[in-house]
């Protein structure tokens, strides 16, 4: 019987996000996108919870939580 | 990027632009500085304009070295200037004292911002006016000018150079964040109409040129390094040959001349607008950007039938004591609005010798004092 993959939770603090696009640019799996000057999740299924977006966000605005 | 050209036409420029252009019009050929808000645009403009005319711009590693480089360049014959704001002005003090002591012409622009310390870097202030007089150690001569508009900033910058060259003294040009950054309509004078003075040279250059000669004028004739007269310059007390001395007679002779040099020409140097009304009881004494609000308030007060005498110095040091005294003798109360806690009010009170009551109107939160505030203060004491 096939396991369904548990998706990570990505939290984006809109009030702190300055829309610099760094997370979007460097996400290895194009999980993130831009909308109205803020980062948004556009393809959570692709997220591997590598945490690169979080580590590179200058504004403490994006957090990634591995779930399981 | 502003450029020095076609001054005929109407333009809208800032005080910092006017200062940079005034300096070039006065003959500036060397600028050394270190960036600091709200003065940085002066350096930025000159970093582009000076090389265009064969002049030199250098951003030094700090304000101390900027002041040092300015002195060195001036001794080598280039009209020199630096620009800074409070924290940098404090750092320049030691070498400003050297320029005073060695009688090296140069111009120091201090665009006043909120202090003390880092204070309010982007807001305006007039709280360095006493420091301009007493910032360095020891009794020393100094001149300080303070314009109240963009247009005046151009003229005062030219005058700063002229006075500096004429009297062999560092001249401090006091701007504030408002004048530095406001865009105003100006029509600048044509190059050829601008009067510029050069340092006084000895009439006959003999082999025994005395760099600190005692002359009737008290201002020693000056030539530059590299002109064939190999003289010595030092920050130690020196005799007329320029070499250090510990002889009491020489020390007194030198230090007295050094300080007398400015005192005796005070009337030449001082510039004051005096606007008197018959039997006014109220006086207003204001300078720099505050004097513009004051002028408006005085107009309004007069419209309201209050007689007011208005005095506005364009030179703060040497202090226009005669004019302040005259104002005191002609009034019973003098309002002194300023963007500090009463630094110049203290000098007016000194000059008044109790002849008139000094009323302070102070603002230290970075906001300019507006005409209404001053009008209210006038009406209150009227």
């Amino acid at each position, binding site marked *: 019987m096939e396991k369904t993959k548990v998706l990570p939770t990505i939290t984006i603090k809109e009030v702190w996000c300055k829309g610099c696009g760094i997370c979007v640019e460097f996400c290895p799996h194009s999980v993130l996108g831009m909308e109205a000057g803020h980062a948004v999740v556009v393809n959570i299924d692709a997220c591997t919870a590598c945490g690169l977006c979080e580590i590179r966000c*200058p504004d403490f605005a994006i957090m990634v939580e591995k779930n399981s | 990027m502003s450029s020095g050209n076609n001054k005929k036409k109407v333009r809208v420029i800032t005080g910092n632009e006017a200062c940079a252009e005034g300096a070039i019009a006065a003959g500036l050929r060397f600028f050394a500085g270190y960036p600091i808000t709200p003065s940085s645009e002066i350096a930025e403009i000159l970093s582009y304009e000076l*090389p265009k005319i064969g002049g030199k711009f250098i951003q030094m*590693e700090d304000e101390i070295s900027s002041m040092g480089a300015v002195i060195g360049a001036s001794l080598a014959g280039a009209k020199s200037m630096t620009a800074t704001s409070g924290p940098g002005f404090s750092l320049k003090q030691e070498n400003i004292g050297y320029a005073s002591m060695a009688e090296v012409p140069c111009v120091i622009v201090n665009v006043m911002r909120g202090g003390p310390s880092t204070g309010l870097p982007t807001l305006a202030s007039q709280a360095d006016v006493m420091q301009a007089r007493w910032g360095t150690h020891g009794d020393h001569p100094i001149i300080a000018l303070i314009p109240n508009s963009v247009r005046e900033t151009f003229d005062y910058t030219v005058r700063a150079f002229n006075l500096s060259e004429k009297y062999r003294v560092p001249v401090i040009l006091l701007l504030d964040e408002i004048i530095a950054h406001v865009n105003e309509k100006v029509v600048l004078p044509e190059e050829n109409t601008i009067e510029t003075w050069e340092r006084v040279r000895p009439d006959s250059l003999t082999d025994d040129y005395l760099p600190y000669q005692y002359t009737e004028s008290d201002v020693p004739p000056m030539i530059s390094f590299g002109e064939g007269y190999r003289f010595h310059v030092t920050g130690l007390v020196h005799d007329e040959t320029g070499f250090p001395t510990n002889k009491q007679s020489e020390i007194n002779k030198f230090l007295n001349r050094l300080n007398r040099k400015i005192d005796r020409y005070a009337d030449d140097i001082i510039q004051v607008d005096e606007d008197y009304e018959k039997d006014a009881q109220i006086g207003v004494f204001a300078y720099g950007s505050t004097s513009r609000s004051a002028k408006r308030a005085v107009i309004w007060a007069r419209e309201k039938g209050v007689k007011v005498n208005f005095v506005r110095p364009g030179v703060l040091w040497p202090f226009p004591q005669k004019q302040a005294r005259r104002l005191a003798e002609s009034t019973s109360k003098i309002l002194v609005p300023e963007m500090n806690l009463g630094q110049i009010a203290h000098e007016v009170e000194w000059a008044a010798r109790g002849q008139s009551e000094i009323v302070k109107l102070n603002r230290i939160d970075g906001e300019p004092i507006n005409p209404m505030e001053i009008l209210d203060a006038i009406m209150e004491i009227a």
Partner: protein
Amino acid sequence: MFDYEKYIRKNKFPLIWCPGCGDGIVLKAMLRAIDRIGLDKDEICMVSGIGCSSRLTGYVDFNTLHTTHGRALAFATGVKMAKPQMHVIVVTGDGDATAIGGNHYIHAARRNIDITVVLFNNNIYGMTGGQVSPTTPRNFKASTAPMGNPENSFNISGLAEAAGASFVARGTVYDAIRLDRLIEKAILKKGFSVVEVMTPCPTAFGRRNRLGDGPAMMKLLKEDAVTVSRAAKMDEKELENKIITGVLVDIERPEYTANYQKLIEQMKGIEQ
């Protein structure tokens, strides 16, 4: 997910820095390093000068001291001498540390006093609007070098080494993961340690030099960075305009506060 909140002054957020400014990435790396070492917040004194980067001290929940321009190391020296048990970390910019502050930088290195410097090198004066800095590369443009910088620039890590620092490293905000390791090593080193961090200033440096926005400038950092080990195998020409990253210096030299403690012990004998 790392819990930064434990170390920040949340009520001061959002950060004053521009969109795409790298400074926040360094800040996070510092917090991770501090957390990994397990330092007590009360035992940390973070000292900064004046500049965008130096604003960092306002955001972290330590003993924080925002000093005058260029003087952070002087103030920090006083703090460290008075309370040697404190971990003193200096946050400074390329202008703050190596222009006006250059003398304190080399003398702190000479004394090898146990202070860690995290030097934010964005090759420009950010705070004041983009004037040339001692690390602005030749011919690059700045507001006070409109035709391109006519001056040579410093190798500020090399300078620290020559002056006597016992630990020197260089990292970039692109490689944020390695960055916190370098900072960790620096803090753990007993002696004067410097971590030079290459960080983008899109507003005051990137724009004027057509290097693009934050992400674009981070890509450049990615391309230009070479590790010490790789660099060892490259020649001068290949290394031109490259950023050598990793631990550059790690040696043992007498540390100042320790020397001074010895002096105190030695003098205990002498009659008052």
